[in-house]
């Protein structure tokens, strides 16, 4: 069995950044396993601009952003196995993959970094009644058909869910000559970035139906019609509010879920709030030497933060490979009032060697709020925050010194300003 210092599973934005960072930290003997025919992952189909402002201080398309990382990986001689699908991961850091070039192969490593990305919530998860005709796609699936395969998926379109991919597809389909009748969002607020509401919907006069959902689909072979209904505060459809749209295409942009079956099958402890593995401040999961980052850990809204987080996970892996030491007791970090989750979910005060940045999301939109980080009855940090939204990931830092002095669990909370 071939043995590596580190295996990176996934050659998208997280995997490429992790691989580059491992090399820069002196971890030479590594391999990246990528299922697609080229590296880059989901960035290859995200042809819109807005990527890279944090990382490269300029605004790039998804493919251009990916190309920068692919170049860096090539310059550092990172081995990337393409058309390679990982089928099993075990706690002892053996990894099984299949590829047409090599067949069924098992390899092992001292460290494994999961950079596996996420998948889209599909129709089955949201219970739309009606027939099952062609013409109903997840937004990302339609995006791939249009932007990589070069097929137009429909002419008269409705979009369910105001996630960013749905909004971006509303604009893309419009520019390609389709008529987009509207975007429905079951929540009373949008789930996409505000800039995408502006430039993808308002620029093209596409209506956004808040507190609305698609309740029924019609059509035998191809979608012919959808039923749209308003919902009450418990998200139940209100009788009498039915509206019908004659459309041949329904795109679903109803959420992303970390792709976690490899981690689950390996017996890694998962965090139900993020639906990815629980990780410590070095991004190590509950399995020693197995790390997780990017959208496979928790869903991000900006690729720049995926790259950043993957680099930190790779630094964590490099530290683990070099030191192999017991990091002492762990102190949990938990979401408090109005916070949905935090990543990482624990820190190690006895080995507090660097500042730790926490990623979190609020549960509901808030205009004026105060971020509070506390441990026991001690308040470590308060910070005024404006215009918080669940669709925008927030960040907060604790210094190495603060972490070293932690005794009780850390709570990250957001309180509404009085």
């Amino acid at each position, binding site marked *: 069995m071939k043995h590596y210092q580190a295996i990176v599973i996934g050659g998208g934005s997280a995997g490429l950044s992790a691989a580059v960072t491992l090399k820069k930290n002196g971890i030479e003997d590594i391999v990246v396993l990528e299922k697609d025919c080229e590296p880059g992952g989901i960035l290859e189909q995200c*042809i819109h*601009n807005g990527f890279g402002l944090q990382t490269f201080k300029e*605004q790039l398309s998804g493919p*251009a952003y990916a*190309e920068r990382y692919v170049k860096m990986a090539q310059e550092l001689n990172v081995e990337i196995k393409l058309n390679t699908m990982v089928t099993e991961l075990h706690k002892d850091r053996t990894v099984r993959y299949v590829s047409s070039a090599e067949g069924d192969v098992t390899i092992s490593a001292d460290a494994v970094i999961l950079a596996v990305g996420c998948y889209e919530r599909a129709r089955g998860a949201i219970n739309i009644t009606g027939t099952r005709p062609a013409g109903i796609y997840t937004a990302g699936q339609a995006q791939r058909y249009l932007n*990589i395969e070069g097929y137009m998926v429909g002419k008269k379109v409705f979009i369910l869910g105001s996630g960013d991919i749905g909004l971006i597809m509303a604009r*893309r389909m419009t520019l390609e000559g389709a008529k987009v009748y509207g975007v429905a969002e079951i929540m009373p607020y949008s789930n996409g970035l505000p*800039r995408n509401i*502006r430039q993808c919907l308002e620029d093209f006069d596409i209506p956004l139906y808040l507190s609305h959902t698609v309740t029924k689909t019609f059509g035998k072979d191809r979608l012919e019609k959808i039923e749209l209904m308003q919902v009450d505060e418990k998200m139940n459809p209100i009788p009498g509010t039915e509206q019908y749209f004659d459309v041949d295409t329904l795109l679903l942009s109803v959420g992303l879920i970390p792709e976690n079956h490899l981690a689950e099958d390996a017996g890694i402890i998962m965090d139900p709030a993020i639906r990815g593995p629980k990780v410590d401040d070095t991004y190590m999961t509950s399995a020693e030497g197995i790390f997780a980052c990017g959208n496979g850990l928790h869903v991000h809204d900006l690729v720049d933060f995926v790259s950043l987080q993957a680099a930190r996970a790779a630094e964590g892996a490099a530290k683990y490979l070099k030191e192999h030491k017991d990091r002492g007791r762990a102190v949990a970090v938990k979401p408090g009032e109005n916070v949905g989750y935090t990543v990482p979910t624990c820190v190690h005060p006895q080995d507090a060697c660097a500042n730790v940045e926490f990623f979190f999301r609020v549960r509901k939109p808030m205009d004026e709020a105060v971020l509070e980080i506390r441990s026991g009855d001690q308040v470590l940090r308060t910070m005024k925050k404006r215009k918080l939204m669940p669709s925008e990931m927030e960040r907060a830092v604790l210094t190495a010194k603060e972490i070293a002095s932690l005794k009780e669990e850390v709570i990250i909370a957001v309180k509404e300003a009085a």
Partner: protein
Amino acid sequence: METRELICVTCPMGCRITVEMEEGKVLSVSGNSCPRGEAYARQECIQPMRILTSTVRIENGIHRVLPVITEKEIPLEKMEAAMAEVREVTVNAPVEVNDVILEDIAGTGVNLIASRSMQKI
């Protein structure tokens, strides 16, 4: 005096910008966190400008289409005219990132360029 609330589309930060205007002239811009935001807000009140991204057909490439992007923002009102030109283009692989695909798209003075490299199969 007229007050306009804008959302900056320059980057994914999506800053909420307030513009104070009088008789079509911008008096003040606030809420932006960088100079690009101020430039965006001033321009947005006069003539909205946007980056256009799309795809063009490519022969002999590893995929059937090549993603393309305008080098700079073009007027929002020119989008349709620009797309009409984009639809007519077919290129041949190989292509390098930033290769010019179409000069002076829709008479805007802005070039359409490849937003990735694509090898020949």
